[in-house]
């Protein structure tokens, strides 16, 4: 298992290098001079040239890239062009907000999505299933930002139950999380349902039935366990989409998280911030995907056995030998 995790961690490195390269290249081809942007419209060409020199913008691409990576390794993400503050500390400060927003939303989606999907699948061919599925598709098709506005309009403007924006108290989190979670809940519902229906058709379910297992146990133990594993994979991918959604959500609800920071930087072309945001958010995404893979490997024995470390394997063969020597027919296992 450790070997598996180690291997996956190593695989992360080329991906991260790739991301930095892509972002650097993107900014390279962008029209507009950052030095000009920093100094404002009426800066003299001399001052711009001086600043360019100071920022090292005149160096060749690879030199700049190398310098960026070098700084990156020292935890230096550069300073914001706009505020002049170090990007790293700003991000550390903002990070918890985004994490809370995304995690709560993800939690909500899973907690509501999976049971709903199971419910729909167990009521297949009835109006309950049809209704649930249509509603789910409805929610998937709804623009999240629009839903957020509608929520604000109802709960904050009309009924004044919840704050319009900001997160002064827990109440402030309700609308952003619900708005972000809705579409993903629906996706999980759909996924769970179709997995359940797929699994229910498998031969091993018939075997379970032929063994005399009750329908309830079949559905909630045999089928659900098999159906949920792929959903976990989907949840990993969803985390990335939620980070994307957080850009808008945090802007709408004025949550001082990474999303809002990124949006502000994008609007003002604050390159160091844009670069770091993309990198950090992608890194976060990659870590989550890694976690999901590990969880997946823990749940699914087929993957687990591929990555059982050598030592464990040896231990097991020894055990086998022992058993054979003893001829232990009724050993209580490993």
């Amino acid at each position: 298992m450790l070997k598996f995790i180690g291997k996956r961690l190593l695989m992360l490195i080329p991906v991260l290098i790739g991301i930095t390269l892509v972002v650097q290249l993107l900014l390279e081809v962008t029209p507009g001079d950052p030095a000009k942007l920093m100094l404002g419209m009426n800066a003299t060409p001399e001052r711009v040239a001086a600043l360019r020199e100071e920022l090292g913008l005149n160096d060749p691409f690879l030199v700049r890239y190398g310098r960026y990576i070098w700084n990156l390794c020292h935890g230096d993400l550069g300073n914001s062009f706009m505020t002049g503050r170090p990007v790293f500390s700003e991000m550390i400060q903002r990070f918890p907000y985004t994490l809370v927003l995304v995690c709560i939303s993800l939690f909500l989606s899973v907690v509501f999505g999976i049971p709903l999907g199971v419910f729909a699948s167990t009521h297949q061919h009835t109006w309950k299933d049809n209704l649930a599925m249509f509603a789910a598709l409805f929610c998937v098709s709804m623009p999240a930002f629009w839903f957020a506005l509608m929520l604000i309009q109802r709960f904050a403007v009309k009924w004044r139950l919840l704050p319009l924006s900001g997160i002064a108290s827990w109440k402030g989190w309700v609308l952003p999380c619900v708005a972000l979670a809705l579409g993903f809940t629906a996706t999980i519902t759909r996924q769970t349902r179709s997995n359940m229906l797929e699994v229910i058709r498998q031969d091993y379910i018939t075997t379970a039935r032929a063994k005399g297992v009750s329908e309830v146990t079949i559905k909630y133990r045999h089928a659900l366990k098999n159906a949920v594993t792929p959903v976990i994979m989907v949840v990993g991918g969803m985390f990335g989409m939620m980070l994307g959604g957080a850009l808008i959500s945090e802007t709408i609800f004025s949550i001082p998280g990474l999303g809002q920071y990124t949006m502000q930087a994008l609007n003002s072309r604050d390159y160091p911030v844009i670069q770091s945001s993309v990198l950090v958010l992608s890194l976060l995404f990659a870590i989550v995907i890694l976690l999901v893979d590990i969880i997946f490997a823990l749940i699914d024995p087929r993957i687990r056995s591929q990555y059982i470390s050598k030592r464990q394997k040896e231990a097991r063969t020894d055990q086998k030998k022992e058993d054979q020597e003893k001829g232990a027919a009724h050993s209580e296992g490993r």
Partner: protein
Amino acid sequence: MSEELLEIKDLRIEYHTDESVIHAVNGIDLSVKKGQTLGLVGETGAGKTTIAKSILRILPGLQAKILSGEIRFEGKDLLSVSEREMRKIRGNKIAMIFQDPMTALNPIETIGFQISETLKIHNKLTKKEARKKACEMLELVGIPSYRYDEYPHQFSGGMKQRVVIAIGLACNPELLLADEPTTALDVTIQAQVLEMMAELKEKLDTSVILITHDLGVVANFCDSVAVAYAGEIVERGTVEQIFDHVAHPYTEGLFASLPRLDRRERRLKPIKGLMPDPAALPEGCSFCDRCPYAEERCFKTKPADVELEPGHIVKCFRVAGGE
């Protein structure tokens, strides 16, 4: 003569799909005696698996409709007992072994769990006792018991089928429905598994319905035979009766399409044509289109059962004698 353990009378089953109605089983009669093995022979799609599944009442509920018939098991009609009672029978008194061991086991549970699960359902056992019994079952089918905690993917096809058999026999059922238990296996493994089943059957005194399309297996393994064709049993009797006095043209065809070492024939004689579409069965005898002896009446009316000898029953005009 021992008593009848299972008796099926006039069973009719249809599958309803979006497009059509499939007549899967059309009024079959079958019986299995205690301790005996019945070979149910026929081509793919003849309704063999449907018959087996209907005995356990595990047909897909929404599509399959049992139109008529009764399935008497130890005096009870299985088609009319409650679902709860039925659950007590499944896996306990009647167990089933499925065709494809690759898919018949739950991939994310240990094989030990899958064997002990059926034990725990039907017997009041503690976890430990169930485990002990399951280990015994594993040893019985030739798998060392230390593999209890392993998962299906760690086993080969033949070993998986052994596990499936262990699940089937775990509660020492009266009747075992074996649905082509060896078709998905390599030829060499097939023999091993069959051998083992035969031994276990003797040991545990279980009756077996062995579904197969291999007449060789039937000859070695079974006491009586039923030949299924297009949802009907066209001929049934003891192995001797069928093998020595073939009566139905279809059975005859089955034998003719077998390679035989004791006769010098250049070619096998396959039965011409295909089985009729079960959604549109012919009006007369279901075999009439392919029968080399078909007469006019064969196309118009269905032949009735004719008992040639006690126990040897044939559905054909030819054996009934001309009028």
